[in-house]
């Protein structure tokens, strides 16, 4: 029996690690959800892969938040609260090196779908740039960040269309510019880039059938309505599960 101990250990490792992963998934889905939200094909992008029969949706956040014309979405105090060293002013000559040396950090970010923050940012961007921005139609816009998820839940309790997700963020110094005929002056500022959020969402059967029969994977330019709506239920570990799909 001792002869097969290491073989049994390898087999057991496969079973135990799979069991741990399945228990984690079950725990995530048990209990009350952290969010239930319906998103459209603008926020959940579907791409076909001929080598992969699984259907994946990619959660896309709006790029508008890091547009140079858009207002900063998080004040410097909020950035410092995430653990970043903001002691050097972004206009300082040492700023680029100082902020480049700071690695990305984990935090929780609250996103809102097409809310007032998104509208403000959209209004601040001039028309030609706005055309480019709408190529990425997502209206999922970051509005707040914290190291503590409960804090964010308390702040946005009862507010519909808010999604709190674990994210990877990075501090970015943005240099100042002076006023020209087409734009107002802007002082140097710190911005927070959302490097990563859990974005891949697997579509299980029977929902995946709806996606297989779609004639196109992206909304045509002139189409007034999205291709599909997907309802997501985020569990206690902020991992999503598809609960409904509707294709008009």
């Amino acid at each position, binding site marked *: 029996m001792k002869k097969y101990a290491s073989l049994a250990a390898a087999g057991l490792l496969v079973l135990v690690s799979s069991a741990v992963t399945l228990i984690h*998934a079950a725990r995530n889905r048990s209990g009350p959800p952290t969010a239930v939200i319906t998103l459209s094909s603008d926020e959940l992008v579907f791409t076909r892969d001929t080598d*992969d029969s699984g259907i994946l949706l990619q959660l896309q956040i709006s790029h508008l938040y890091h547009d140079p014309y858009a207002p900063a979405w998080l004040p410097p105090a909020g950035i410092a609260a995430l653990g970043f060293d903001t002691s050097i002013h972004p206009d300082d000559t040492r700023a680029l090196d100082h902020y480049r040396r700071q690695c990305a950090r984990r935090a929780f970010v609250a996103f809102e779908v097409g809310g007032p923050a998104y509208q403000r940012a959209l209004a601040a961007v001039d028309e030609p740039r706005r055309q480019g921005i709408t190529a990425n139609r997502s209206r999922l816009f970051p509005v707040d960040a914290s190291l503590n998820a409960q804090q964010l839940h308390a702040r946005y309790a009862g507010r519909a269309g808010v999604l709190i997700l674990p994210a990877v963020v990075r501090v970015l110094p943005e240099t100042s510019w002076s006023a020209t005929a087409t734009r107002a002056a802007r002082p140097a500022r710190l911005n927070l880039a959302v490097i990563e959020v859990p974005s891949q969402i697997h579509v299980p059967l029977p929902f995946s059938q709806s996606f297989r029969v779609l004639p196109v994977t992206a909304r045509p330019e002139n189409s007034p309505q999205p291709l599909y709506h997907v309802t997501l239920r985020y569990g206690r570990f902020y991992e999503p599960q598809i609960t409904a799909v509707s294709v008009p």
Partner: protein
Amino acid sequence: MNGDLLSRAEAQRQADRIRALRDSLAQLQRDRILILTPDQRAAFDAWSAETLQTLAARFDIDTTDSQKRLSLGLRIASTLGGLALCAALILFFLRFWGYVDTPFQVVAAICLPLAALAATEFAALRERTLYFAGLMALISLGCFILTLSAIGRVFNIISTENALFAWGLFALLLAYRYGLRLLLAIALGLLVSFGSATLSGRFGYQWLDFSNRPENFVVLGLIVFAIPLFLVHRRRSDFPPVYRLAGLFVFYIATISLAEWAGQSYFPAGVKFIERAYEIFGLLSAGAFIAWGIRRHWDGVVNISSAAFVIFLFCRLFHWWWDWMPRYIFFAVIGAIAIALVFAFKRVRSHFNPEAAA
């Protein structure tokens, strides 16, 4: 005597020594330096033939140069075959898994590595050279990576560094069970990555950015190097060199990257200062490892440290002279330094030759 042998690697080394002794005796006899009597010669020939035969029968080792060359080809073929079959199996799974229900996906993902494990054991029982077992062990690891990735994807689980630990442990178990050095090197790579990712995660950084913190790898590389100093490998006598080489490889790559760009260093000092410090540290540590390797007869350590020493030196010269020196002079100076190094190494080498020293 052969009963004392513990591993195939040791048996191979003993066979090599016997073959070398046989060749040397033949040469000495031809040069009329040492002439054995016919009885002695017959006894030696009988002993060497019997010993080689016994070793070959028990461990399936190479007893001729042609066999050795073919074995290398077999090892390369089995590694490439293992990787190709891994890719084929994973792509096959991905091509069809979307058409089945979640329970079936999960069961299939769990059964794949278990089936591959059974096939590895079957191959190992049937063949002592372990080419097929090595190939199947690689496939088992690939299947286990697929298992956790597939379950993670089905349930949209946020990735963590813990999977690296499970995969590394799995590869380590297979490496020790079947004596597979490639699996050991892969296991060490996975476990070092896990260590670095865990450290990154504990400091509040994204675990996937673990490669951006080279200092983690400096420490972990040294730990891997030191493992065989504390862990005696009686059965797997060919494993300590893998630990040493893998550890030093990680250590030097991390140190060279810090010497070239120290922007991600934990130290709060200026980038230029940290880069210079790591350059000096790298040169000194390479020199120290060369000396240690020579004393302990660790050929791999001497070779990899010599290469690292030259890289550190040339990087420094590049920083000093590339911008202001005409290119032809720069390369001429590099060539002159290389020649000086050859002379220096030859002198060092002659110190280890007892006749020359005498």
